[in-house]
């Protein structure tokens, strides 16, 4: 995974709450067996509507999505994160994220920055009044800055560290292989196996 420290890009205001993963990428786009190429599925239903934000310049070139609360609810599909990243997004800002989406983002290297709703409203107004405004997300300092507005964001400390270092979870876990071996030796005999 690539290291992440700061990112600067065009902010996209998405005034919607409960943006579920079926909206981010509908199920019909999940049939691919590759890890890339999901950008065409991103918000595909909404992108049919000319007035949708990503159909407008300069927002179509955005890389920081500023969304309403409860972003990423519903299905566990990591394809939602891949679709956002394949499109070019590096950061999603919301007041509340669904748990699985937040976890998937951390694994794939998308920053899910939790910003208080009043600050999200300020960002929305700024980005709508001055389309094309660049937003800088500083993971070290945990701040979001656009023009003269700077607001803090929350992110789990451990996830932040992993993103800053660009570390692979499986590699980290396998450092504790001895502990896994020891745990396996102590498992009760009545636990089920799929092969018996």
């Amino acid at each position: 995974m690539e290291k992440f420290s700061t990112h600067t890009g065009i902010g996209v205001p998405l005034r919607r709450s409960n943006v579920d993963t079926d909206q981010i990428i509908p199920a019909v786009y999940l049939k691919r067996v590759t890890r890339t190429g999901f950008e065409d599925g991103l918000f595909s239903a909404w992108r049919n509507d000319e007035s949708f934000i990503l159909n407008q310049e300069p927002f179509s070139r955005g890389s920081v999505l500023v969304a309403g609360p409860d972003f990423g609810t519903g299905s566990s599909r990591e394809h939602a994160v891949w679709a956002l990243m394949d499109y070019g997004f590096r950061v999603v800002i919301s007041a509340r994220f669904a748990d699985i989406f937040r976890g998937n983002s951390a694994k794939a290297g998308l920053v899910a920055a939790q910003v208080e709703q009043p600050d999200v409203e300020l960002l929305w107004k700024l980005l709508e009044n001055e389309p094309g405004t660049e937003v800088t997300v500083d993971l070290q300092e945990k701040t979001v800055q656009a023009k003269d507005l700077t607001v803090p964001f929350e992110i789990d400390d451990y996830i932040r560290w992993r993103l800053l270092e660009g570390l692979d979870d499986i590699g980290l876990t396998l450092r504790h292989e001895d502990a896994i071996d020891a745990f396996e030796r102590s498992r009760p005999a009545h636990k089920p196996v799929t092969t018996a």
Partner: protein
Amino acid sequence: MGRTLAEKVWDQHLVRKGAENGAGQEPDLLYIDLHLVHEVTSPQAFDGLRLAGRPVRRPDLTLATEDHNVPTLDVLAPIADPVSRTQVETLRRNCEEFGVRLYPMNHAEQGIVHVVGPQLGLTQPGTTVVCGDSHTSTHGAFGAMAFGIGTSEVEHVLATQTLPLKPFKTMAINVHSADGRLRPGVTSKDVVLAIIAQIGTGGGQGYVLEYRGNVIDNLSMEARMTICNMSIEAGARAGMIAPDETTFAYLKGRDHAPKGAQWDEAVEAWRELRTDADAVFDAEVDIDADALTPFVTWGTNPGQGLPLGETVPDPAAIVDENERVAAEKALSYMGLEAGQPLRSIKVDTVFVGSCTNGRIEDLRAAAEILDGKQIADGVRMLVVPGSMRVRFQAEEEGLDKVFTAAGAEWRSAGCSMCLGMNPDQLAPGERSASTSNRNFEGRQGKGGRTHLVSPLVAAATAVRGTLSSPEDLV
């Protein structure tokens, strides 16, 4: 201080407690007892293993089925959609290469992953169960800690049989009624829809929900699975119900349940899996089940639901701006008017099935309503059993005949119209009453409009052509 059920199961699976280091609190490392796999969220995970040269650590704790993509008609022919076919074939190749047991299409054990695990007796109290599917919460009905994961985590579990996780918060959902029963016509689906409407689609974020109370105690395992299944619709990590005699009776004798002396040993351990009397939940919610009537959704998220006797809400009356805007968008998408009685809403399609309501009791409930009746003109009804076993059982009981005599279609097992990855989809503008779990925009097909309902409401709606409960039929 005592511990909750969720905390006990967590503690029993701790491989390593996360330490506090310079980078902040590390997650705990948790052992996974059962990893269920399907074709949609696994190909990139197996690819990751291949790239890193890693094996599947415990194929004997891993089980795969084909469910999301599979057609429910012409099941003996090759899958017509080439992309779906590739995905299914990729799963077969991966399972072969990595030594994972797979129940493919047309196998007697094939079905929706969350129906298959419990019916085989693989889902057991006090186990940790994961799957690359958010409805893994279903398995919590057995007192298992069960939750959905993304594809990176699927790869992690395949490689290590563990997951790094920070402890979840705990929430008690107390469901009570005077006599411990639900009112006639009210099912566990109505209970969970009412819970989600009350706490909201984000209300459970970060929590494991434990469903408790005299109503839960009296529910069958299948009804409990319906409730736990939709925990994710409240945003929760998992939903759990403490195992009891009902759980043990369900499990006894199943293929993968412990046998002989191991059964006694297991039951003894399972009896400890109850929240201690002095344990404290991080949050508690009370549900008065005597006040519950059949529940339906009117909007485009599962929290937008109301009792069937109500009218479509007026967004103008909603104070919270985000919720008001969401309700306005939902009514526009759903083609509904504020103030319209929910009972007046006409449907084109009725879907009975899914990991929420595709088990034998659900089919029996729907068949009982349909017996000797005809579905309304212009309505199509799909009945899709959750697994091949459910299908065979239903056919043994003659339920298939009841459905087809009423004019419904009797299909083969799979996820089907719940998410429309196979040909079972709504056309744009089409409206369904669906026993599935999500009414998101386009979930059942682009432009499709979904009302989530119980199997009883689905069957009554099929007969009348408008959203109805069984009491409307007499």
